[in-house]
């Protein structure tokens, strides 16, 4: 294919450290694809990167409306970034609804690239602007730098000889935007060209049309006078030499389960039922058959976990993935897994609740359910991932604990981590912890009787799987006699077994690392104690507070039950402890109850993550109070 060669005018290129960009448009505008392509290019360029897609729960919400807006936010930087950015510097708004939905999160003075066709009378009306009002012309955007671009018209011009139908041509308009953004940030477009050729292997003309639209966007930047004052930007690469991949939290969970099964020498079985925002774990593992992974899409959430219990009884590394409503359905079966004392990983990707709640939005409101949501005394370990990449390490750790301590483990993620992505330096198998199943060896008739509930020093029983000669035994949900595992209703035995099950979980604290301080002084005025996906916002806020000279530190919990042994000691080293959570205050209860301290609770229940500015403001307010 040929492109019109024009000599680019000289445009200033300014170096910047970080930029946060939002691609926003109608659900049908292809913003997720555009954002993903941009993120891939930025990642390969070597930038630090964090992405977050934000889309409606409906597959096709009414076109042009605010409810139908789909966004993809990313921050890329020449220094480490932990969030997609509290606010964005640049917003692509394909239509007026996209602008309306997102303007509040654009920095004052930020850049708006507006697709003018999305601001016609019809679109303005659909977005709910009053009659006659058009933000592109009425001065309401005077605090921003606005670039109105007739994206659709320019795409149509570029592709008029492509032979594509007008509908197909219009669908390439996101590629025009992508090209324009590549130009703006002096990024190469060759990677996307390769992707297009790979994606449309059988329809080369389609690949070429997409590429042509992208290049048209790129060269539009060169040709137009529009950006003459703004110039272009350059974010220098940061990543060290190495092989990287980009993962979302859900992909990382799936990879971790597979990796853990390999390290443990076990077959992986995942019994699950599709549920937003956990579904990609099942989808990713369904594609891992090459690694021997067995996935089972069950008829419901209950069958998902119970089939996993069956597989675990058979000696597999078994897991089930779900979100809040699904965990609620699995809870009776979790009790069975607790009393059977078999390994099981339950990944709960939290979303806004109760009930169907906010299916596509993150929340941390299942902590209580994870910790306490069972009938009877049924303790089990609960751990939480704090970033997309950490979803790998935390899920891996969940599998290790499950197998080595013969217990179900709940691993918490959320809708934010699930769909966010960041670059991950490819891990070496040697760096992964060993996972050692404790299989009971076969028994000869003359050997001592097999005692299914005999425990080791850690109170862990052995794993006796069917097919092992001489170990035939029956277990079940009824209370068991200590050691023999026979059904027992004896009062003292029940109390003993309750205590032993509890002690087994408590002793896991012996095998987990001590809590560390992520950032800041080991003693000081304020400790910000977080868990889960709030990591990035807290990390960034504490960094900024430290730069301002505040006495503030950040500790982030992976192990919520049992807690690391030194947590109480750490909490005592600060005058105040602040606990930010995306719920109505859950960890704060547990901390208060366990350590008899009075932490400050800082909560947000809006279905959106904290941003660093909110946390920083809270930190400075609290420090002011402490001083007064």
């Amino acid at each position: 294919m040929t492109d019109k060669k024009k000599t680019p005018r000289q445009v200033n290129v300014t170096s910047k450290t970080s930029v946060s960009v939002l691609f926003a448009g109608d659900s049908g505008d292809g913003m997720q694809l555009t954002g993903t392509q941009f993120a891939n290019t930025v990642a390969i360029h070597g930038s630090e990167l964090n992405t977050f897609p934000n889309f409606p729960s409906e597959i096709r919400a009414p076109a042009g409306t605010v409810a139908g807006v789909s966004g993809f936010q990313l921050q890329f930087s020449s220094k480490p970034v932990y969030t997609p950015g509290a606010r964005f510097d640049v917003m692509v708004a394909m239509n007026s609804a996209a602008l309306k939905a997102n303007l509040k999160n654009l920095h004052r003075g930020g850049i708006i690239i507006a697709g003018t066709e999305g601001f016609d009378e019809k679109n303005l009306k659909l977005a709910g602007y009053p009659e006659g009002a058009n933000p592109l012309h009425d001065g309401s955007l005077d605090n921003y730098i606005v670039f109105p671009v007739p994206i659709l018209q320019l795409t149509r011009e570029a592709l008029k000889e492509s032979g594509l139908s007008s509908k197909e041509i219009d669908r390439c308009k996101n590629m025009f935007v992508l090209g324009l953004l590549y130009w703006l940030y002096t990024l190469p477009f060759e990677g996307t060209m390769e992707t297009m050729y790979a994606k449309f292997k059988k329809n080369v003309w389609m690949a070429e049309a997409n590429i042509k639209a992208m290049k048209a966007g790129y060269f539009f930047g060169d040709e137009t006078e529009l950006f003459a004052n703004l110039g272009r930007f350059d974010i220098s690469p940061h990543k060290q030499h190495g092989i990287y991949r980009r993962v979302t939290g859900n992909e990382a969970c799936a990879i971790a389960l597979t990796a853990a099964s390999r390290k443990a020498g076990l077959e992986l079985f995942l019994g699950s039922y599709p549920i937003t925002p956990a579904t990609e774990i099942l989808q990713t593992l369904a594609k891992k058959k090459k690694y021997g992974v067995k996935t089972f899409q069950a008829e419901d959430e209950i069958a998902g976990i119970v089939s996993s219990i069956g597989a675990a009884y058979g000696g597999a590394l078994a897991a089930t993935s779900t979100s809040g409503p699904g965990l609620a359905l699995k809870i009776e079966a979790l009790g069975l897994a607790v009393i059977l004392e078999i390994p099981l990983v339950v990944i709960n990707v939290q979303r806004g609740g109760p009930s169907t709640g906010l299916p596509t939005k993150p929340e941390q409101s299942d902590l209580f359910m994870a910790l306490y949501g069972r009938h009877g005394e049924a303790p089990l370990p609960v751990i939480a991932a704090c970033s997309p990449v950490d979803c790998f390490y935390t899920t891996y750790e969940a599998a290790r604990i499950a197998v080595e301590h013969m217990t179900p483990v709940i691993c918490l993620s959320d809708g934010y981590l699930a769909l966010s992505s960041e670059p991950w330096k490819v891990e070496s198998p040697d760096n992964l912890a060993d996972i050692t199943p404790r299989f009971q060896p076969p028994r000869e008739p003359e050997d001592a009787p097999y005692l299914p509930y005999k425990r080791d020093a850690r109170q862990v029983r052995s794993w006796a799987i069917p097919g092992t000669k001489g170990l035939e035994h029956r277990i079940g949900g009824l209370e068991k006699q200590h050691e023999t595992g026979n059904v027992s209703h004896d009062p003292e035995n029940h109390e003993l077994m309750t205590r032993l099950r509890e002690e087994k979980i408590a002793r896991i604290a012996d095998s987990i690392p001590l809590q560390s301080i992520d950032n800041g002084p080991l003693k000081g005025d304020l400790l910000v104690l977080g868990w889960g996906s709030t990591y990035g916002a807290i990390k960034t806020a504490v960094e900024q507070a430290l730069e301002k000279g505040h006495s503030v530190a950040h500790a982030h919990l992976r192990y919520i039950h049992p807690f690391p042994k030194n947590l109480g000691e750490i909490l005592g080293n600060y005058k105040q402890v602040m606990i930010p959570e995306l719920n109505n205050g859950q960890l704060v209860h547990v901390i208060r109850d366990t350590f008899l301290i009075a932490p400050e609770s800082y909560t947000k229940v809006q279905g959106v993550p904290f941003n660093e500015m909110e946390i920083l403001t809270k930190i400075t307010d609290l420090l002011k109070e402490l001083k007064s």
Partner: protein
Amino acid sequence: MTDTDRTMKTLPAPLTAKDFASDQEPKWCPGCGDHSVLQQLKQVLPELGVAPENIVFLSGIGCSSRLPYYLATYGVHGIHGRALPMATGLKIARPELSVWVGTGDGDALSIGGNHFIHTLRRNPDLNVVLFNNEIYGLTKGQYSPTSKIGLKTVTSPSGVIDHPFNTAALTIGSGGTFFARAFDRDGKLLRAILKRAAEHKGTALVEIYQNCPIFNNAAFEAFATLDSKADNTIYVEQGKPLVFGKNKNRGVMLDGFTPIVVDLDKDEFSTSDLWLHDESDINKASILARFADDDSLPRPIGVFYAEDRITYEDALAAQIQDAQKAGYGTLEELLKGENSYEIKSAS
């Protein structure tokens, strides 16, 4: 618990029923039909040529679900209604095991109804022994999804108004590949059917009419006593005409799609006019399944339907094998992924 005092024998030395008895005393009521089912199972298991350590009995909740405790195999007594998905998970993970499920009409058809239909359509190789006593025993006498209309129980003091499930029709309608019916009291027949179920590759559903002497005594009396059995039941055998009656003088023939009972002595029909049983015919099996809804027809026992269809675990294993044609994925490959990229220089 357990079978620790049992003498282990190595195959192929013949095992006996004793080898499959656990050290736990059955806690079912005296006279309960479950005792018979357990007895027949203990006799059939040694004939299967499968070592006890390769047999697993799983169950849900209810009287019948205590079954695993009394057999010297591996076993899990699970939670209410969930034995089938547990068995499916186990079978997928360990296809080489002989996996059995003990369940009841409440466990399988009420609380576990969803699992029942989905397990049948997927067809994992399981042997499902469904003890149907048309009542809830363990919770003391409430009606079940197979209780007859009008049955008075503690929760239906004015009589049951729920239309009951027809287990056979439900099984066949769900895409099940094997259905057989037997009686607790007819040990010989029960053994034969259990053996057939074990040999069937796929989900074999055996419905056992089982008497609960405490809460629903004599529910199956018409089919079970020597007096009435011959006239009220019909034993279906592959390739044989549907003949029944004390004097083998009655038969069932098809008038279009409608089964009718004829008297071979009085009516002008001979056995060659009768319906020939064909286990592979799903249409005939569907009609046979509906006999239970019509009191003028004898109640069929025996194997209604048997279809050879790939099992879930085999289909999955085939996909995995196919995916591994180009080699078994390594841990390095897994961690590297398919879209990794190299960054060559640091800033």
